[in-house]
């Protein structure tokens, strides 16, 4: 209303036409107003995304390096422990006395167990050492503390325990991130690879990449011919077939995973079919292994490959392939040199989308895979809810997030995120 009123008075006074500078200024002002209005419309969602998405994820990133529990619960001994030279075997009585005082407090506010758990994440076995010693210390009124500790557990005479205590009493620690890539510290605090039997995370990252890649390639291998066929059907039939592609797309992930459990399990539909036809004599093991995970994930992610492919292929004019053929190209050459390059945007969109989505899969591998088929997400969830190792869960999450964001940036550059087709 106000803008139109302005315009009316403006032209009445003749300013708009006679004075180009004033007109320009008013145009700029109007554009600024429009821009501000646009920002005002976007602002609520930005704030909402900030609060419910960016801040929580930021908190996870902070938690991957910030672990103040030990620093807070060992206020007296923390500074002394950090001041110990690397490789200390036997600190002096003052350190033991400070530690004993902190332990008494910790036993009093029931936090001893949490400290012990945290120490145990860094060095297996420290939990029982710390709990046992805390009980002994709590029973004793006065020192000397050093012999008491050493008597409670001989671990107090080893350099490793002092390194771990010094490291964990820092508020900020690189340990969770190091652990997430299978690195740890030796007894003198130098960074080394984890012992072979606890080295799992890099393998899980590799497995996650490998399964995602396999699923993406299968989706492309199945999706490309299907999308080609659909895009060359008469529009009416093509749309009808697209509904068939979209039906599984709209069906709940959990329903589709349930379907695959029912199909593939030992007493399942596929096995009874195979047995009835005499193809196999005993049921095949198809769940709780890689086969089940890959086939179900391919099924679930296939529509994400088909949708961008069909939308790109429908826009490819048939004249080019015809021209190539009439100029003497064989069908294979015409496809390879003319059609395939034109369908590349669809391929890159589908491949990136499927791969990114596959990287984060949790539910399907958890229900259809065995212990050796779990992907990164499973270990994040497991560390959070079962081991209660929040720091490690956050660190693994941070690495997974970094990988996904990298691919997302590539996707943004090559495809453009708002060009995602949703049916």
């Amino acid at each position: 209303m106000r803008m139109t009123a302005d315009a009316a008075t403006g032209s009445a006074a003749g300013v708009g036409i006679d004075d180009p500078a004033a007109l320009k200024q008013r145009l700029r002002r109007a554009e600024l107003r429009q821009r501000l209005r646009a920002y005002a419309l976007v602002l609520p969602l930005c704030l909402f995304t900030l609060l419910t998405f960016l801040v929580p994820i930021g908190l996870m990133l902070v938690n991957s390096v910030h672990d103040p529990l030990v620093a807070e619960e060992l206020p007296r001994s923390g500074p002394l422990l950090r001041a110990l030279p690397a490789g200390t075997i036997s600190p002096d009585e003052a350190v033991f006395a400070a530690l004993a005082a902190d332990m008494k407090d910790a036993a009093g506010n029931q936090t001893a167990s949490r400290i012990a758990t945290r120490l145990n994440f860094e060095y297996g076995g420290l939990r029982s050492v710390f709990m046992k010693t805390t009980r002994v210390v709590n029973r004793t009124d006065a020192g000397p503390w050093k012999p008491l500790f050493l008597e409670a557990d001989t671990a107090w005479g080893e350099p490793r325990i002092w390194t771990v205590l010094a490291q964990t009493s820092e508020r900020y620690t690189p340990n969770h991130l190091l652990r997430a890539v299978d690195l740890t510290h030796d007894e003198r605090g130098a960074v080394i690879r984890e012992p072979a039997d606890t080295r799992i995370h890099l393998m899980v990252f590799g497995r996650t990449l490998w399964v995602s890649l396999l699923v993406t390639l299968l989706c492309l291998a199945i999706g490309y011919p299907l999308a080609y066929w659909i895009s060359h059907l008469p529009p009416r039939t093509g749309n009808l077939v697209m509904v068939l592609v979209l039906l599984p797309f709209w069906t709940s992930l959990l329903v589709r995973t349930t379907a695959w459990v029912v199909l593939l399990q030992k007493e399942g539909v596929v096995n009874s079919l195979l047995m009835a036809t005499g193809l196999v004599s005993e049921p095949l093991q198809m769940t709780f292994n890689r086969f089940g995970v890959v086939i179900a994930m391919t099924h679930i992610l296939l529509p994400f490959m088909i949708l961008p492919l069909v939308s790109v292929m429908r826009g490819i004019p048939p004249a080019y392939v015809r021209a190539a053929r009439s100029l003497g190209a064989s069908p294979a050459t015409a496809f390879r040199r003319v059609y395939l390059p034109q369908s590349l945007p669809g391929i890159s969109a589908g491949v990136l989308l499927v791969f990114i989505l596959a990287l984060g899969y949790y539910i399907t591998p958890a229900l259809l895979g065995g212990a050796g088929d779990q992907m990164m997400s499973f270990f994040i969830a497991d560390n959070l809810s079962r081991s209660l190792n929040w720091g490690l869960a956050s660190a693994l999450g941070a690495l997974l997030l970094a990988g996904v964001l990298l691919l997302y940036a590539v996707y943004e550059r090559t495809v453009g995120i708002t060009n995602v087709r949703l049916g």
Partner: protein
Amino acid sequence: MSAAPSANALPPYASLRDKLVHHALRAFSVAALVFLIAPVLVIVPLAFNADPYFTYPIHEYTLKWFVEFFTNETWRVSVRNSFVIALAATFIATTLGTLAAVGLMHRNLPGRALITAILVSPMIVPIVIIAVGAYFFYSTLGIANSLTGIILAHAVLGTPFVLITVSATLAGFDLSLVRAARVLGASPWTAFRRITLPIIWPGVFSGALFAFATSFDEVVVVLFLGSVEQRTIPRQMWTGLREQLSPTILAAAVVMILISVAMLLTLEALRRRNARLRGLQA
């Protein structure tokens, strides 16, 4: 599009090799479609199997698993929670997403690409990461074990879909219609309500459907943020699949499939209406 020749009608001069390739492609495509559809359809009859087995042949049909699904207290709570969460999340996502899409319509907005990339990222970031972050954050806020926390997390998961579908509708939107309304004296709000909204509502509605489906299907956030009181249908199915597969889960799956089909058909009808209005072939 209508000018595109159909691959099905082979020209009379097609060589034997052309024909072979053509038939092989069709056979492969039909097989791929069967692979897509069959797993979903196969479990439907099994939900009516009177015996608690999960394979064919079915000797006797029954509705008892559906009766169980609709009367059992645990399942009823899950159904109610699922709808409450999904409807609330959809409302938030649709309102905020539509407003933002209208704002982002202005092409020469500084920072537009970055804002869009950030607003769409909940669709791309692995759900476990969102759930872990939400768990940390909502625990400190004290809404970890509540419907509120789940609703907020689900709403942000749904906003990218609303943003994308509404933006797609707005891409073909003629801004001069709004200018005409404004010149004729409409306030910005009236112009939005009377001109913009009626034109973009199919996009808004399909975005809302996507947001609803996302929330209705989501289980990881519910696992992290919800206690037993906040269980939803997918969470009940998850628990059942991990412990003991029961026929009631199949009944629940069939109900979920029906809801999906209803949403898909609504969306398809919308798409056709939209195509018709724009003068394209439906």
